[in-house]
C-alpha cells in the first residue's frame, strides 16, 4: 500500500516536473457536481476524482443534489476557501451571473463541464463539452462505411422528444448519411432514452417492417435504448448485430458486453472524462498564462467489436455507470 502511494506521489511529481515549471501538486480545485442523476454522471464524478489524484490536484468535491442553490452555495464556499479554480457542471442554464461575477472578482477561473450556461462568456474561462452533432455524425459515418454501397434501411430510436441530445444526435446522423442515397431512415420514434421504451418501440418497428426483414440497421440515440431493442430483436427470432446492425451513442458498460457477445456493432463514446481537458487547460494557464479556447470539445471516439469490448467493459464497470 505504501509502495503504491509512493509510486503515485513519485509519478505525479515526475509528471508535474515534465509538465512545466509550476507543480500541479500545489493546485486546489473545487468541483460542484450536479448530483447523481444518471450512471454517466456517476462515472464523470469518479473519473474527475481519478484525474485529480493522478495529477496531484487537491479536489474539493460538492454534490448539489440537483439543486442550483446548493451549487451556488458550494461555489461561494470555494471562493471563501481561496481555491485555484472551480469546476462546475451547471444543473440549469440560467441564474449564474451573480455568483460567477464573485468568482471573477476573486480572480478564480471557472470552468464549465458538460453543459453551458446562458450569460456572458466572460464569466467563465472555458467550457468542456462533447459535440452532440459530431456524435451522431460518427455513428452515421460508421454505418455508411459498414453498408459499403449496399441498400440499408435504418430505424432510429430517438431520445426524449425536444431534448438537445435527441435533436443534435439526429441532425449529425442525418448529415452523415445525406450523401448516400442507399442508406436511409425508414422509421423514427422516441424511446425516451430508456431500456423499456427502446424495447417497446423496437417491437413495433419489427412488426411494421415485415418482421424485421426490411430493417438493415438500428441507430439508437443512447446505449440503454439499444440494449432494450436488442432484446426485442432476439425475441423476434433475429440476430442482433448480424441480421440487424446496432449502432448507438454513450459507451456505457452494458453495450460493451453486448458487443462482446456480437449483439451490438458500434458505439460512440460520450466521454466521462470532462475534467482531464479542464485540468490540462488550467495547468497551462497557471504555467504561462495561456488562455484556453472558450469551448473545448472532447473526442467522440468510436468503439466497434474490434476494440476488445470485454476489456473496455471491465475498465468501465468500476466507474459507477
Amino acid at each position: 500500500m505504501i509502495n503504491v502511494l509512493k509510486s503515485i506521489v513519485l509519478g505525479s511529481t515526475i509528471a508535474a516536473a515534465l509538465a512545466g515549471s509550476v507543480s500541479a501538486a500545489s493546485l486546489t480545485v473545487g468541483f460542484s457536481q450536479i448530483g447523481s442523476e444518471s450512471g454517466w454522471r456517476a462515472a464523470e464524478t469518479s473519473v474527475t476524482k481519478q484525474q485529480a489524484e493522478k495529477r496531484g490536484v487537491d479536489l474539493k468535491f460538492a454534490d448539489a443534489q440537483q439543486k442550483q442553490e446548493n451549487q451556488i452555495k458550494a461555489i461561494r464556499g470555494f471562493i471563501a476557501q481561496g481555491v485555484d479554480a472551480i469546476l462546475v457542471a451547471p444543473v440549469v442554464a440560467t441564474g449564474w451571473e451573480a455568483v460567477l461575477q464573485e468568482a471573477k472578482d476573486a480572480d478564480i477561473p471557472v470552468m464549465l463541464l458538460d453543459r453551458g450556461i446562458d450569460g456572458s462568456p466572460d464569466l467563465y474561462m472555458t467550457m468542456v463539452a462533447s459535440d452532440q452533432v459530431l456524435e451522431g455524425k460518427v455513428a452515421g459515418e460508421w454505418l455508411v462505411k459498414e453498408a459499403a454501397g449496399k441498400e440499408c434501411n435504418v430505424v432510429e430510436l430517438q431520445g426524449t422528444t425536444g431534448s438537445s441530445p435527441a435533436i443534435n444526435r439526429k441532425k449529425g446522423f442525418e448529415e452523415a448519411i445525406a450523401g448516400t442515397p442507399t442508406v436511409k431512415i425508414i422509421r423514427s420514434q422516441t424511446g425516451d432514452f430508456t431500456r423499456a421504451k427502446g424495447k417497446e418501440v423496437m417491437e413495433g418497428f419489427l412488426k411494421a417492417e415485415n418482421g424485421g426483414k426490411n430493417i438493415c440497421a438500428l441507430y439508437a440515440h443512447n446505449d440503454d435504448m439499444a440494449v432494450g431493442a436488442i432484446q426485442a430483436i432476439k425475441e423476434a427470432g433475429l440476430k442482433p448485430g448480424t441480421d440487424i446492425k446496432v449502432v448507438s451513442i454513450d459507451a456505457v458498460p452494458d453495450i460493451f458486453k453486448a458487443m462482446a457477445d456480437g449483439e451490438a456493432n458500434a458505439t460512440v463514446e460520450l466521454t466521462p472524462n470532462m475534467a482531464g481537458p479542464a485540468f490540462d487547460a488550467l495547468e497551462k494557464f497557471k504555467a504561462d498564462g495561456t488562455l484556453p479556447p472558450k469551448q473545448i470539445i472532447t473526442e467522440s471516439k468510436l468503439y466497434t467489436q474490434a476494440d476488445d469490448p470485454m476489456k473496455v467493459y471491465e475498465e468501465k464497470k468500476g466507474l459507477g455507470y
Partner: protein
Amino acid sequence: MRKFMPGLRKAAPQLVSLGVILFFNWLAFPGFFDLRIQDGRLFGSLIDVLNRGAPVAILAIGMTAVIASKGVDLSVGAVMAMAGAVAATMTVAGHPPPIVLLSALAVGVACGLLNGLLVAVLELQPIVATLILMVAGRGIAQLITEGVIVTFNDPGLIFVGTGAFLDLPMPVVLAAALALLAVLVVRRTALGMLIESIGVNRSASTYAGINSRLLIIIVYAFSGFCAALAGIIAAADIRGADANNAGLWLELDAILAVVIGGTSLLGGRFSILMSVLGAIIIQAMNTGILISGFPPEYNLVVKACVIILILLAQSASLGGVAWLPRRIPAAKSKEA
C-alpha cells in the same frame, strides 16, 4: 348468456372505442392482426398490445379497488420501481427466484399497508398520503440500486417478464389470472359491495357495521401488491431494474384506465374487467402511434385527442344525441 347482455351493452362505448382504434391501427399497418408462433410464443402486434398493456392492466386492477373506496393511489409507479429494484438486487446477490419474488411482492404489500394506515387510521387525504410514497419511493428505489441499472441473467426471474404459458406471454397470463381472481373475490363474496358502500359513504357504512378501517387498509395493500407484480414484470422484461424510469407516470395511466373503464373517481360502483379493458384501449392506442410512422412530436397530441374522444363517447349528456349505441333507457332511468 342472456345474463351477460346488460354487461356487454354497458361496455358498448369502450368496446366500440377499442374496435375503432384497432381499425385505425389496421389501416396504418395492414399486418396488424397477423399472428405467428415464434420461439414457443405467439408473436404479433395484437400480442404486443396485450403484453405491453399488462403492467398497466395489473396496476388498474388494484387502482380500481382503491378508487372504488373513494381513494386514489399515486404511489404505484414508485412501488413498481422499488419492487423491481429489490428483485434485481436480490437476484444479483444470489437468492433463488421464489424468495426474490416473495420479497419483492412483500415490499409492495408493505408499501400498500403504509398507504392504508395513512388513509384509514391517520385519515390523511388519499392523494396526499400516497403522494408521500410516490416521491419517496423512487428515491428509495434509487438507494437500493445505488443509482445504476442493476442487470441480471437469472432465467427464473426473466421468465416472469418474457416467458410464455400456453403460447401467451407471461405478463398477459399473470394479468388475466389476477383479473379473474380479483373479480371472483369481489363479486362472489360481499367484499365488492362493502368496498362500494365505503366509497359511497364511509361513515354510514361504519355505522352499518362495516369495518371500513380494515377494508381500506386491505384495498391499499392489494394495490401495493399489484404494483409490485407490475414492477417485477417491468424489471424482468428488460432484465434490469431502472429505478429512474421504471413505472414513471404509470400511476396516471392506471387512473386513466380506471376512468375509461367507467369507474367514478368519486368512489362507489366499479368494474375490474372494464378497467382492464381501459388499459388495453390505452395500449392499443400507444402501439398504434408507434407503428403509424407519425413523427414522435405528435405522440402526445394524438394521444390526448383520442382520449378526449373516448371520454366524450362515454359521457352521459352526449349519450342521448351521439351515434353510439348507449345504455337502454330503462337502465338509465333506474340509475337516476
